[in-house]
């Protein structure tokens, strides 16, 4: 598991922070060991509040880790960097900027690309995510699904080593979510960027990933992992494949166990959310 070829390696990662209101130390994740292989699409699923998003924020460098080590290509992660780009759950678009202006915001913030080049490439990126013709639209004129396309294009334009996706489709309705999953796979297959995808949707995780990791309840750590041996390219019908359903059952069981943890273990743990 700790092979040196890993893109992202987490060893014994623990993350904690102070809850100001209750003045208690909150342990979000503890002892996370995992490795993401180059070019792999890895999904993390887990019960609600298990610290999976917190872990992703640490990978992005937005929050520090309390213990263990977290490395990307062997370098310790201490702050955000151009080698990673996040697709957020909430699109986080600047409402006064057009689609084009929002897509270039990532590279603009990084200062990694000239404006002219950024605009040219952004236009290609916008086409890639299926928003051609909407370059000059404002975010509030777009549907939720379209906003998430902008969110994705902004991340892709920075051409990161690793793409981090934090439940990007969680707020969308069921049909849109399925279309977006299909589109994401299409785009991902063109670039094959290493991707770390956080979700609570088991089907989504299986459908997208090469490997699915299940987190325990809080404080989260890796409970088990599952290689998804479904051939690519995958269309949406694969979700009714018997193999797919076997994976789904297995992950579902695994999460159920976590939800059914006896009350005394709950009490000993950390304050309830």
């Amino acid at each position: 598991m700790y092979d040196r070829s890993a893109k992202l390696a987490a060893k014994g990662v623990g993350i904690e922070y102070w809850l100001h209101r209750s003045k208690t130390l909150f342990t979000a994740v503890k002892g996370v060991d995992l490795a993401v292989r180059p070019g792999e699409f890895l999904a993390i699923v887990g019960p609600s509040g298990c610290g999976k998003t917190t872990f992703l924020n640490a990978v992005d460098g937005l929050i520090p880790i309390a213990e263990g080590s977290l490395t990307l290509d062997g370098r310790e992660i201490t702050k955000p960097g151009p080698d990673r780009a996040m697709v957020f759950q909430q699109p986080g678009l600047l409402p006064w900027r057009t689609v084009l202006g929002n897509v270039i915001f990532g590279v603009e913030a990084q200062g990694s690309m000239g404006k002219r080049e950024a605009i040219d490439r952004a236009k290609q990126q916008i086409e890639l995510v299926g928003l051609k013709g909407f370059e000059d639209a404002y975010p509030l004129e777009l549907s939720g699904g379209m906003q998430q396309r902008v969110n994705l294009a902004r991340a892709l334009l920075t051409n990161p080593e690793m793409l981090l996706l934090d439940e990007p489709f969680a707020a969308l309705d069921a049909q849109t979510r399925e279309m977006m999953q299909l589109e994401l796979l299409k785009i991902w297959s063109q670039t094959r960027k290493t991707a770390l995808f956080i979700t609570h949707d088991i089907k989504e995780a299986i459908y997208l990933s090469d490997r699915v990791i299940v987190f325990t309840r809080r404080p989260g750590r890796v409970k088990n992992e599952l290689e998804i041996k479904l051939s690519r390219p995958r269309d949406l019908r694969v979700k009714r494949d018997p193999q797919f359903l076997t994976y789904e059952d297995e992950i579902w069981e695994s999460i159920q166990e976590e939800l059914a943890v006896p009350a005394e273990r709950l009490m000993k743990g950390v304050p309830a959310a």
Partner: protein
Amino acid sequence: MSKEVLLGEPFATRTGDRIPARETRSVVRPSRIKQYEPLVIGTFSVVFALTAWQLVANARIYSVLFLPGPWDVAQAFVKLFQTDDIWLDIATSGTEMGIGYGMAIAVGLLIGLLMGWYTRFQYALDPFVNFFYSTPRIVLIPLFILWFGIEMTPKIAVIFLGALFPIIINTMAGVRNTEAALLRVARSFGASDALIFRRVVLPGSVPFILTGFRLGIGHALTGVVVAELIAAKHGVGQLIAIAGQTFQTPKMLAGVLLIAGTGMLLTTLLQRIENRFQSWRPQIK
């Protein structure tokens, strides 16, 4: 929103069609009359009020001194502009207003942005801002007259202080209200503090800042008039004071009209600017 997604998206994804804009799908097109409704109703209500006022005045239950009609005021207004003094009054008040309000914008914007951005700076200045904002700055006029005499300077000081605090408070609120999600995105892409300030915080604060400017106008105009009422050589406020004391009620009201008109004009102007900055916000109506 979700319905629109359902209808629009899958088709567009499949065919690459441009998703039809929302307006074309609206069933009832608003009629042209509806568009001018605010203007029409507004005009009617003003005309109605003026007529009622004129009728009551015409009944002459009270003399012109106590209740001049709108026609009397209009005549006084025209007569006012036939004298040379009025231009000196307007120039005096205008200069006071321009300098005082201009300084309030410059200083208020700077202090407001600093207080919003640097928490410690806010802690340091909060007591003073609260003290002055909750005190009518007019009460300082006697002190200003002692310090600066009865020329323009004490008026400028009152106008400045009047407009300053609404601008500071609103600007600060604008910076403070920057959406956390936007800051997170900017940080995630490694944006420097300077870039976050210029590209995220400042544009997001514009509506608040302009609201502060707009509130400041009201305070500044109050400052002009009240300061001139107390002691002045020239100015529109002075004109109102003298007309009032010499029982020329129509002339006094003409002066009031001048002040009110200026206020409305400046506020409308700022409202226009505000709308320009908000073109990205879909119309609610």
